[in-house]
């Protein structure tokens, strides 16, 4: 089969190119920072306390996010009710919500002036104070619980309906049910989901910036930012970047050992119909209500505040929207191309090669956007004005930051498709075109849609890199929001937040929905 040799070679080249680009982006830029800083700086007591805080809050945040996601996702997978699909789409919202917007929403509910504090005061209790560790963890759970839920939902969706039918007709005990059907799913999805949320919380920056409450709630990423932007201590920033890198790199290596979500056997390609739904209705309703309230109230608070002021927004909101959308679409194209290249290149290799690809994808997550941004700034500056490249740089850094998610979503799907249908291809001698267009891509459509939705929305809400390259003539919506807040224009800031959220959600919805078309039409 000459054709397949060419295919493999092409895939090797593409996959290799993506890996090389990633290495340059992550390690290359960190090296540029270290060189400019003339080596590594000494870390003080405050820096080490930031390292400790980062680790324990990430552990707790990931544990809570995944732990709560288990009953919530099971309830969503088991029950069918009006608005279920809307709620699942909405689950994508906090993760893709611009962090500063989400924090404003959380404060409206959980802050000292928030609804819950209001009720507590009325009942004679003290107000809540969420600054510091509680706020960081609350915000991390708010942003990551929905992500974990969606990953677990995918896991539940991978169980063939036949198994539920068999279990039901055999009247399996709850324990047997859990041990034989649910536990294998959880075991295959939870480690990956936990690792992912842990990494997200490890490199999270804006949450600690907003609700960390000062020196006692400082994460490594925030300390890196402070060393760069405030002290201009590149040596210390480089040292902190090395610590961050080692932690995340260690976790990336751990990703080798973590089993990926698996399916075995050829189940039908659709969401399982659960015959045991009615038995669990009350408990499931509880979990769905809790999760929905946790998501909807903060988002609703922002919406109520800002929606009335949208007509008053200055015309710059249009240019800022277009810039944001341009960056987001470019970033999505780059991200999905990279993720698909990696996924296809490693789909048929051994476990080690696949884990390598995925580990390097995780490296993207382990890399601090601020280190990358500053590294690129330093690399470009001697030759050209870095601001000229603000759009492509922001788009590519955003693409790299979204890559681990896209890869997480695509990799298992590509591998399953190859595992399930490759023998079919060989035995029927299917051509590459038919193979890709009739078998691979239709099966990837749903994960591709979800991955692209994540990438586009993550880029829409990003404030990190663009702020480093900020220019008065070039602003994205999050930057505009930030500037409005800096000018006492709180109502307009809330309005921009609404505009931003609507655009992010719309783009996410278009991609995610586009991916579901195949499944629905079946």
């Amino acid at each position, binding site marked *: 089969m000459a054709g397949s040799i060419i295919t493999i070679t092409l895939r090797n080249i593409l996959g290799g190119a993506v890996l090389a680009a990633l290495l340059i982006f992550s390690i290359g830029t960190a090296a540029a920072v270290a060189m400019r800083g003339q080596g590594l700086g000494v870390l003080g*007591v*405050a820096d080490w*306390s930031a390292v400790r805080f980062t680790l324990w809050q990430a552990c707790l945040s990931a544990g809570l996010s995944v732990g709560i996601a288990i009953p919530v996702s099971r309830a969503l997978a088991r029950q069918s009710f009006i608005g279920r699909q809307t709620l699942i789409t909405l689950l994508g919202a906090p993760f893709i919500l611009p962090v500063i917007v989400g924090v404003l929403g959380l*404060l*409206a509910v959980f*802050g*000292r*002036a928030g609804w819950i504090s209001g009720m507590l005061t009325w009942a004679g209790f003290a107000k809540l*104070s969420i*600054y*510091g560790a509680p706020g960081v963890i609350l915000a991390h759970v708010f942003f990551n619980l929905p992500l974990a839920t969606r990953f677990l939902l995918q896991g539940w969706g991978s169980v063939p309906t036949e198994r539920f039918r068999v279990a039901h007709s055999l009247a399996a005990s709850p324990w047997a049910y859990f041990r034989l059907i649910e536990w294998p799913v959880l075991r295959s999805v939870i480690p990956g989901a936990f690792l992912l949320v842990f990494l997200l919380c490890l490199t999270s920056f804006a949450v600690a*910036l*907003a*609700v*960390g*409450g*000062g*020196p*006692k709630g*400082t994460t490594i990423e925030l300390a890196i930012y*402070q060393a*760069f*932007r*405030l*002290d*201009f201590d590149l040596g210390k920033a480089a040292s902190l970047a090395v610590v961050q890198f080692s932690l995340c790199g260690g976790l990336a290596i751990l990703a080798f050992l973590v089993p990926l979500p698996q399916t075995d056997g050829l189940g039908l390609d659709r969401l399982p119909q659960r015959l045991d739904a009615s038995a669990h209705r009350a408990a499931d309703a509880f979990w769905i209500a809790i999760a929905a309230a946790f998501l909807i109230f903060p988002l609703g608070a922002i919406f109520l505040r800002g929606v009335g002021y949208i007509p008053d927004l*200055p015309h*710059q909101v249009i240019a800022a929207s277009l810039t944001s959308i341009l960056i987001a679409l470019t970033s999505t194209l780059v991200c999905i191309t990279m993720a698909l290249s990696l996924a296809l290149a490693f789909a048929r290799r051994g476990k080690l090669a696949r884990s390598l690809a995925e580990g390097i994808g995780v490296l993207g997550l382990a890399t601090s956007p601020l280190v990358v941004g*500053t590294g690129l*700034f*330093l690399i470009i*500056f*001697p030759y050209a*004005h870095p*601001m000229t490249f603000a759009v492509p740089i922001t788009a590519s850094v955003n693409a790299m930051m979204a890559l681990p998610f896209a890869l997480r979503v695509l990799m298992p799907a590509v591998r399953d498709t190859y595992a399930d249908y490759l023998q079919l291809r060989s035995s029927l001698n299917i051509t590459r075109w038919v193979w890709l267009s009739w078998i691979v891509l239709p099966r990837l459509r749903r994960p591709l849609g979800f991955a692209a939705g994540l990438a586009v929305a993550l880029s829409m809400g990003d404030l990190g890199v663009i*702020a480093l390259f*900020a*220019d*008065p*003539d070039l602003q994205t919506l999050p930057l505009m929001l*930030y*500037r*409005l*807040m*800096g*000018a*006492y*224009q*709180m109502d307009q*800031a809330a309005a921009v937040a609404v505009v931003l959220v609507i655009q992010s959600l719309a783009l996410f919805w278009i991609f995610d929905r586009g991916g579901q078309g195949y499944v629905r039409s079946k």
Partner: protein
Amino acid sequence: MRITSLFAGLFLATTAVAETPVLTIYTYDSFVSDWGPGPAVEAAFEATCGCDLQMVGTGDGAALLARLKLEGSRTDADIVMGLDTNLTAAAADTGLFDPTSVTANYAVPGGWDDPLFVPFDWGYFAFVQNVGLQSPKNFRALADSDLKIVIQDPRSSTPGLGLLMWVKAAYGNDAADIWADLSDNIVTVTAGWSEAYGMFLEGEADMVLSYTTSPAYHTIAEGDASKSFAVFDEGHYMQIEVAGKLASSDQSALADQFLQFMVSDTFQSIIPTTNWMFPAVTPAAGLPEKFPKALSAAQSLIFSPREAADLRNVALAEWQAVLSQ
């Protein structure tokens, strides 16, 4: 016809921009926002200079200095506007600034005499609160109270650094004790002034570190008299915001022209109701009616730039040590 002239106008404008010199100013974000002084300043200067004035917002005052150090002599900036006297010694030490020959009849308390930097506005730090709240009379009273405050990080924000200097100026070697007593009053430490003020407006705290002139924004711009500031009997630390010309500038003469414009009546009349600070040179028309009055010399605290630079690291270490516990 109109469309033709519109196109002709666009074409001419493009050509004109391509040939006019560009003056680049790095400043803080809120200065260049649509509600800050930026747009009016740009229009007024471009009307006379025959140039293209580009103001780039790069964060807060401390971020400005870090940005400058990052770019070094290759920077595009001709002028940096928005450092304060707590940072000018460190800025001067970079060797990136050129002396200027700007002169003006400064209204800055204590006068002004600095070869490198030109002041454009000034103010007093103060804790802003809602009218009706029982104001503490000093830091000790604030620390003993149950009042919740929001402050800014001295590493990122000039008000945050100003507060560090304020406590140091008022309490000297006891500053660390004051911070230890204050720590349970601090709701949060934000990176910049804007987040802190936003949180205060949202009711997240009883008081916020800002300026004595901040309540004037609410009275004059919003017709809302509900905000005031707490008068502290140990005095209020001052902030003098300055601009300087970079030695690497390829528009040196134009930069001098801007700095002279900066202390002119046109520029200075824009400041009070857009930047909500005292103008460095009192405009001919005076200050707006409801603008607050300057404090007496006895109530004004300030370190010289050199003293502030020498104190910064010690004060910062104390602050970090106390608040990270």
